[in-house]
C-alpha cells in the first residue's frame, strides 16, 4: 500500500499538505479569538527570523528539538513509540549537572566529552527499564515511559529540594557550574572570525545537534545495526525470521533514544542555564514527538521540523508580546494540530492522494 506512491509524494507532498491543514486550522483558531491570522503569521516570522537576535533564539530552541526529535525518531524506526523523551531529558540534564559540579573543570573542551557521556548514560538509564520490560515482559513501552516521565519529575524535585540545593537557598536548583564548563556561545565563536551577532543562548550545542543528526543518519541507513532496527520496525516476524534478536533491537533502540534525549541537557543546562533548575525540559520532550512525526523520522526532516518549531517558540513569544490575546499557549495548540494532522489523521490526506495517483497510473 505504501510503495504505490512516488517518493516525492510520500516524503514531501503528503507531509506538506498535512502541515498546511494543521496551520489552516490554527489560523481558524486565531480568527475565532478575533485576531488577523495573516498579521499573526507576519509577526511570528519577523519575531523568529527578523533579526540576528530572533534567529539566535530560534536556533537555540531548534537545537533542543533536534535532540528530542532524533530521540523519538530512533525509537520510531524500531516500531517503538517513545513518549518518555521528557523524562529521559530530565535525567540527562541531571547527568550533565553532576559532571559539571564534580570537578573544578579548567576548560569546557575537557568537560564536554565527560558531560556528553553523563547526559547519554543518564538518559539511556531512564529508558532502560521501560525497554527491558517491553523486550522481556511485553509491557507496552508507551505506558511505561509515561509512568517514567512522572517518576522522573518526582525524582528530580526530590533531588533538587533535598539533596542538590545550595544550603541556605530557597530556590530548588543546583549551585552554578564553574565557568570552566560554560560552552562557548555562538556570539563568541562567530566573534572570533569577525562576525558580529546579538548575544543569545545559542551555543556550541547547535553544531553538536547537526553532528548528532548526521550520526543518526549513518546509524539508521549505513550500518548493519540500523538495518536491523528498520527491519524490526517494519515487521517483527520477518526480522525474527532473519535472525534479528527482538530483545537486542528493542534494548539498543530505546537506549540510544534515551541517550539522545539526554543530550538536550548539553544545550540548555551546560550551554545556557549553567545550573540544573526545576523542570528545565519544559515540554521539549513532547515537542520531539511532533518534530519526529513531521520530519518523517528522517534526520534531515527532523532538523527542518525542529527549526520550524524553534521559529514557533521564538516567534510565538514575540507574537504574545505584540498580540496579547494570543498567549504562548498558541504554540501548544499548533503543536497539537501538527501531531494530529501529520500523525493521527494522516490518512485524511494520504487516502485521497493515493486514489488520485492510482487512477492516473491506471489511465
Amino acid at each position, binding site marked *: 500500500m505504501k510503495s504505490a506512491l512516488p517518493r516525492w509524494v510520500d516524503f514531501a507532498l503528503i507531509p506538506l499538505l498535512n502541515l498546511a491543514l494543521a496551520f489552516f486550522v490554527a489560523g481558524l483558531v486565531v480568527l475565532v479569538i478575533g485576531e488577523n491570522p495573516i498579521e499573526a503569521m507576519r509577526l511570528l516570522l519577523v519575531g523568529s527570523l527578523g533579526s540576528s537576535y530572533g534567529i539566535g533564539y530560534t536556533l537555540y530552541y531548534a537545537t533542543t528539538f533536534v535532540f528530542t526529535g532524533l530521540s523519538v525518531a530512533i525509537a520510531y524506526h524500531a516500531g517503538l513509540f517513545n513518549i518518555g523523551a521528557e523524562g529521559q531529558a530530565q535525567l540527562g540534564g541531571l547527568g550533565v549537572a553532576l559532571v559539571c559540579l564534580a570537578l573544578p573543570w579548567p576548560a569546557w573542551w575537557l568537560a564536554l566529552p565527560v558531560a556528553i557521556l553523563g547526559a547519554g548514560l543518564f538518559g539511556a538509564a531512564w529508558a532502560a527499564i521501560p525497554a527491558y520490560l517491553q523486550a522481556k515482559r511485553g509491557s507496552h513501552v508507551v505506558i511505561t515511559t509515561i509512568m517514567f516521565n512522572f517518576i522522573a519529575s518526582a525524582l528530580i*524535585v526530590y533531588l533538587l529540594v533535598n539533596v542538590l540545593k545550595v544550603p541556605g537557598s530557597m530556590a530548588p536548583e543546583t549551585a552554578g557550574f564553574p565557568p570552566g564548563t560554560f560552552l562557548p556561545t555562538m556570539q563568541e565563536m562567530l566573534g572570533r572570525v569577525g562576525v558580529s551577532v546579538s548575544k543569545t543562548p545559542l551555543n556550541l550545542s547547535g553544531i553538536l545537534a547537526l553532528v548528532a543528526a548526521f550520526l543518526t543518519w549513518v546509524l539508521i541507513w549505513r550500518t548493519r545495526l540500523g538495518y536491523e532496527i528498520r527491519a524490526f520496525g517494519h515487521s517483527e516476524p520477518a526480522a525474527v525470521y532473519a535472525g534479528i534478536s527482538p530483545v537486542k533491537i528493542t534494548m539498543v533502540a530505546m537506549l540510544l533514544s534515551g541517550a539522545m534525549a539526554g543530550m538536550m541537557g548539553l544545550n540548555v543546562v551546560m550551554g545556557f542555564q549553567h545550573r540544573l533548575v526545576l523542570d528545565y525540559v519544559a515540554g521539549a520532550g513532547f515537542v520531539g514527538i511532533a518534530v519526529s512525526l513531521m520530519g518523517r523520522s528522517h534526520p534531515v526532516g527532523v532538523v527542518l521540523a525542529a527549526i520550524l518549531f524553534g521559529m514557533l517558540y521564538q516567534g510565538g513569544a514575540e507574537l504574545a508580546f505584540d498580540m496579547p490575546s494570543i498567549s504562548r499557549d498558541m504554540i501548544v495548540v499548533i503543536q497539537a494540530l501538527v501531531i494530529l494532522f501529520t500523525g493521527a489523521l494522516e490518512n485524511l490526506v494520504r487516502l485521497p492522494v493515493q486514489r488520485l495517483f492510482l487512477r492516473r497510473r491506471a489511465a
Partner: protein
Amino acid sequence: MDLETILQLAGASLRLATPLLLACLAGLYSERAGIFDIGLEGKMLAAAFAAGAVAAVTGSAWIGLLAGIAASVCLALIHGLASITLKGNQLISGVAINFLASGLTALIGQNWFGMGGQTPQLQASQRFLGISWPFVDRLASVPLLGPLYRHVISGHNLLVYGALAAVPLTWWVLYRTRFGLRLRAVGENPAAVDTAGVSVVRLRYGAVVIAGVLCGLAGAYLSTAMAAGFNREMTAGKGFIALAALIFAKWRPWPALGACLLFGALEAIGIRYQAITIPGVGVVPVQLMQALPYILTVVILAGFVGKAIPPRAGGRPYVKER
C-alpha cells in the same frame, strides 16, 4: 492517628478517587472495545474548562456539566475519527488530544476571562456541593457508626455517588448485556464480531463516546465540585493516574474501584502529611508518595504481581476483509 482522622482521610480518599474512577471507567469502555485511550487527561481537562466556564457564565452547575460532557465528547469523536474511521495511530491521536486540550483551554480561557487561564470563582449555588444525609447530627454520638456516617457515607456531592454507582452499572453492562458482550468481543477479536454481522465501527464509536461522557463527568467534577472554578492544567496528571489504575485493575470494573480508592488514599495521605515517618525506615518524602501510583503500575506491568494483559485487539485499527 485516631479514628476520627482515619475516617476523615477515608472520606477525602473517596472524594479524590472520584475523578480517577470516572476517567478509569472511561478508559475501561474504550480499551475493552480495542481503542487505546491515552487522551483521558486531555478530555478531562477540556471538560473541566468547559464546565467551569459555562457554569460561571450561566450560573448553573448542571448546564456547566452538560458543556463539560459536550467538550469531552467532541475530543472523543476526534479520537474516534482518527482511530476508527481513518485507521490512524491511536497512541499518537491520544497524545495530540492531550496537547490540544492543554493549549486550547489556556488560550481560550485567557482570551475569554483574562485571568491567566482561570475561570471566574464559582458561587456555592453554581457548584455541586456535598449533600448532608439525614440524622448526621443525631447519630454523631454513636461510637464508630456516627463518625463513619458523617465522614465517609454522608456529605459528598452527587457526582461522587454517581461515580460509585457507575461501577456496578459498568459491571452489569459489560458482563450481563448483549452490548457488553459485543463490546468485549470487539476488543478481543473484531473479525469474529464482524462475521457475526455486527458493526465493528458502530460498537467502537459507541465505546469511545461513552468514554467521552465519563471523562466529561470527571472533568466537570474537578472544576465545579472539588474546586470552585477552573485552573490551568488542573487535571495535573490525573488522567494518567486513571490510566495506571486501569492497568492496575487489569481492565475490570470492580478492581478499578479498588485501584482508584488506593490511589485516592495515597493522594489524601500525601496532602495531609507532607512527610511520613515510618519507624525503622525513616522519612518517606512526599515526592515518593506522589510517584507511588506510577511505580506500582510499572511493578504490575513488569508482571511481578500477576500479569496485566490488555485486550488483544487493543491499539490496532480494524480493516475489513475485502
